[in-house]
């Protein structure tokens, strides 16, 4: 394993220093090639996009809570999209679409992986920067342009794309089918192609950095779980995103060049259109071949971050490190053969549905293992409740709550009545929406000193932010399960046309207010975040007493991360509260020879020479113990 690690960790440092001096504003803050700065760019863009997508969700929640009420202010703000103070039904669908697209792709894929893979991979594996800093910079700017294009669709005549974030054709392929399928859809497709390009450039960098640029001693089995998670996430992205591009390109052909990849026997406005022989289901196969790995692309980095944060703050090694890695690998592999569970009721061959059901429920096993291992990690810990720890715990709680409902939806028979109802909305908002965003917030609170040279975020505001958001998220999504069990379909502009749904109106109002409170709670975060960048409490070099490499780097950011030589790694990242050690943590850079009193036989698994030495030391120092 260690043969893969790059040994030249004394890269010409003088050159870096020299380079440092010539930085201009443009090269330092805008077209930066430093992984830490690029991580910050991703984070701040991601937060901006998250706030926008959150506001969109509040808009459509208001519509759901007060379907009969007119809000003149909406007309003032949104103009033709909200005539007479009420959202236009097609604009409602656009809001839903763009909320989903931004949250899934721009926040939880680029915002999450982009920030933390960039920040942490080089710092935690011990590299001076990414394998290709220039491509890394391009990755951010492609993402930025994709964001701008996506948002620009709010400023065109017909409004943004509206066929749902899954953009199923023919709805998305026929510009005449709805306003949201016209120019807005074209912009959506263009934005996504750039987004995928960005994601691929990022992913290739993450994978090559992890494989080739680890410091001396950092073999794969010594990497922290965060790096494992980012690494596997990047592989998923590289393998699945191109398939989305294929699907999107064919859709562009259908929309603009008259091909019939997805279209057949279409009658629109009383006219038979000249399409034949295509299959709308083909698009769904292509889309979900990305779409399903995508939800793991969203959740796995959050899981990695939480594993690390929970271990540090429980002052305990992560329970079952190997099992955690293997379950991540298992989830990654299985995620490629479960996509059909989104298509049980599309008319896909029912036998295929049965197969996808089996693979889908198998994926629950590694997920369960992860949950139990987190529980075992906090068991008999010495838990420090930092805001990061609370958010990591929040992830575990949401992952359980949203995960168990996956067992219903993955079951093809149960999916028949539940498909596309609010039950699904509740499920994925808990298991990948709330859980992933909580993982991301845990990361922001935990690594804030690494993001913004040595500052800490305010803990008390962090507590307020956590509890308000956590409670409100449950208040928003828990009742939705029951709406789904009553057969309330998702993506309905109003329930008023169905007297049978009237009894959910009060619940909808309640959910909307809970969502508004949750949104306001984010003000506590935004204030804390931006205030702390400039005025936050100064942190020490290793404020959480953590073991991983990034805390050995100096507080002040320097290009190249470490002055002088990159530290060598001698042990795994989870030696917390090891018996016999003076402190309750032993950084990865401390050699075993310096910690004789806390060493255990297990530490010398691949190291017979070390084991012999250890046994001799035991003979001398602990004569009462029997040497095995």
């Amino acid at each position: 394993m260690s043969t893969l690690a790059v040994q030249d960790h004394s890269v010409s440092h003088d050159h870096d220093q020299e380079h440092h001096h010539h930085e201009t504003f443009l090269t330092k803050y805008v077209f930066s090639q430093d992984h830490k700065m690029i991580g910050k760019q991703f984070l701040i863009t991601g937060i901006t996009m998250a706030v926008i997508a959150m506001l969109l969700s509040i808009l459509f929640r208001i519509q759901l809570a007060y379907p009969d009420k007119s809000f003149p202010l909406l007309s003032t703000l949104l103009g033709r999209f909200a005539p007479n103070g009420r959202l236009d039904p097609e604009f409602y669908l656009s809001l839903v679409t763009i909320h989903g697209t931004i949250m899934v792709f721009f926040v939880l894929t680029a915002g999450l992986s982009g920030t933390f893979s960039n920040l942490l991979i080089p710092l935690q594996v011990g590299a001076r920067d990414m394998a290709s800093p220039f491509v890394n910079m391009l990755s951010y700017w492609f993402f930025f342009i994709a964001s701008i294009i996506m948002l620009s669709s709010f400023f065109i005549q017909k409004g943004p794309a509206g066929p749902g974030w899954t953009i199923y054709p023919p709805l998305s392929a026929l510009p005449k089918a709805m306003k949201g399928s016209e120019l807005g859809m074209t912009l959506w497709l263009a934005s996504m192609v750039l987004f995928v390009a960005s994601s691929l450039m990022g992913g290739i960098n993450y994978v090559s950095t992890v494989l080739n640029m680890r410091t001396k001693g950092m073999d794969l089995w010594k990497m922290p779980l965060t790096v494992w998670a980012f690494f596997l996430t990047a592989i998923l992205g590289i393998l699945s995103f191109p398939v989305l591009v294929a699907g999107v390109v064919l859709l562009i052909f259908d929309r603009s060049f008259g091909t019939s990849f997805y279209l057949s026997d279409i009658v629109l406005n009383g006219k038979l259109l000249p399409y034949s022989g295509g299959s709308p289901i083909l698009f769904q196969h292509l889309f979900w071949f990305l779409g399903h790995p995508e939800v793991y692309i969203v959740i796995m980095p959050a899981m990695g971050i939480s594993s690390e944060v929970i271990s540090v703050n429980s002052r305990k090694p992560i329970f079952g490190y190997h099992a955690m890695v293997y379950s991540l690998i298992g989830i990654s592999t299985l995620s490629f053969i479960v996509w059909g569970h989104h298509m049980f009721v599309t008319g896909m061959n029912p036998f295929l549905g049965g197969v996808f059901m089996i693979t889908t429920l198998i994926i629950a096993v590694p997920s369960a293992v992860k949950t139990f291992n987190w529980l075992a990690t906090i068991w008999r810990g010495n838990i420090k409740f930092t805001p990061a720890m609370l958010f990591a715990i929040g992830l575990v709680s949401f992952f359980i709550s949203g995960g168990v409902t996956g067992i219903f939806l993955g079951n093809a028979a149960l999916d028949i009545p539940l498909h596309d109802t609010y039950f699904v909305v509740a499920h994925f908002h808990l298991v990948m929406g709330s859980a992933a965003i909580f993982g991301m917030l845990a990361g922001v609170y935990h690594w804030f000193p690494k993001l913004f040279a040595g500052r800490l975020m305010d803990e008390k505001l962090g507590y307020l932010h956590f509890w308000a958001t956590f409670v409100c998220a449950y208040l928003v999504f828990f009742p939705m399960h029951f709406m789904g069990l009553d057969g309330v379909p998702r993506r309905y502009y109003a329930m008023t046309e169905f007297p049978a749904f009237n009894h959910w109106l009060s619940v909808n109002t309640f959910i909307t207010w809970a969502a508004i409170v949750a949104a306001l709670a984010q003000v506590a975060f935004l204030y804390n975040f931006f205030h702390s960048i400039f005025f936050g409490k100064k942190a020490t070099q290793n404020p959480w007493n953590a073991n991983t490499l990034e805390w050995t780097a100096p507080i002040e950011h320097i290009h190249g991360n470490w002055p002088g030589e990159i530290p060598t790694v001698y042990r795994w990242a989870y030696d917390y509260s090891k018996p016999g050690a003076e402190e309750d943590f032993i950084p990865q850079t401390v050699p075993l020879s310096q910690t004789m009193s806390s060493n255990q036989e297990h530490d010398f698994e691949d190291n017979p020479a070390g084991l012999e030495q250890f046994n001799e030391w035991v003979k001398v120092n602990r004569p009462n113990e029997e040497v095995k």
Partner: protein
Amino acid sequence: MQTDSEYQTDIKMGFKNLINSKKISALFAAFLLMGTGTLFAQAPAANAPAADSGSEWLGVGYYVLLFLLVCVIVAVIGKILKIYELTLKIQGKKGINWNNFIGIICLVFLIAGLYGAYWSFTVQGQEILPEPASAHGVKIDQMFWTTTAITTFVFIITQILLFGFLFKYRGSEKRKAYYYPHNNTIEKIWTIVPAIVLTVLVVFGFFIWRQITNTTEVKGDINIELTAHQFAWEIRYPGADGKLGESDYQRFYTTTNNLAVSPEDKGSYDDLKADTLVLPVGKSIRLNIHAQDVIHSVFMPHFRLQMNAVPGLPTFFKFTPTITTADMRNRLDDPSFNYLLYCNKICGGGHYNMQKVVLVVTPAEYRLWLSHQKPYASDLVKKEWKIAEAGKKAGTGDNKIALNN
């Protein structure tokens, strides 16, 4: 000494800030009152057509002020906490033990959350769909309740462990965590147990799924065609022959013959058109599902039935309704109850209102109802079919030549 004086100045500053904050809060309270006043004053005037252009901001402005007030209160509480902790420090006491505090909140959350979940299950759980009105629906519901029992158990146990551990093992300087990196036996157990439970669920689910979907058409099935387009459903029943005439959009679609029924199929001529989906109870129904423009979805939750309507790809769903509408009205004690068919795949602006009433009746009532339905092949359609037929006969020769090219 030096540190003490520093603390004192800090405290002074803190109090100063506090006083300032109070001033601010008083200011906001005043604003708030004014806001309410204007809001009330504005309320009767809202009906007047000539309300001034900025008036729609007032309601929002009120809430913004309210929020700012909350912010101020939060800031004041924060300051008080800070000062309190500083005072404790000066007196040489330990500050607030936040680990204890959060640990207790975790416990409170656990208890409140469990109660909330219980409340949701019992109150909102009453408002879910009534018993299934189809034969296969009963099996789905059995599967559903088994899964619910297992998952609810797991949900409650794991949440109790999670928040219980957080409370029990909240940090303390006196304790050291227990170094426990792995235990292969335990890990094997909690890999294998979920695997077994899931295998059981998968096997049962798989068989139910196969039973529901692996259907062949048998004699006596009532074929009904459902065709979706933006934003309505078309319903076609077979005539006396019990067979739906074939359809082909590429060849036969016209605005009159809008379901593209083939005149070449003898079975087409006695087909019937209907406005309501009427089903005889206890009979095997085969819904033949089409879409004309975009994907729609036939969703009849009371029958635990859903199947997408895909343009160019006919789908079907076979089921047997078991409870008549009248019977269900009695059971629910709701005389206005109706089974409904909704669209459940996003299909455009009217997606939220694309419904059809579904009536389940006795076979006798069904036969009577059917005898009152109009034929699909109206005079207009027949006329068109004749013209097409004539045109085709005349053009046969040309077609052949064209094909040879």
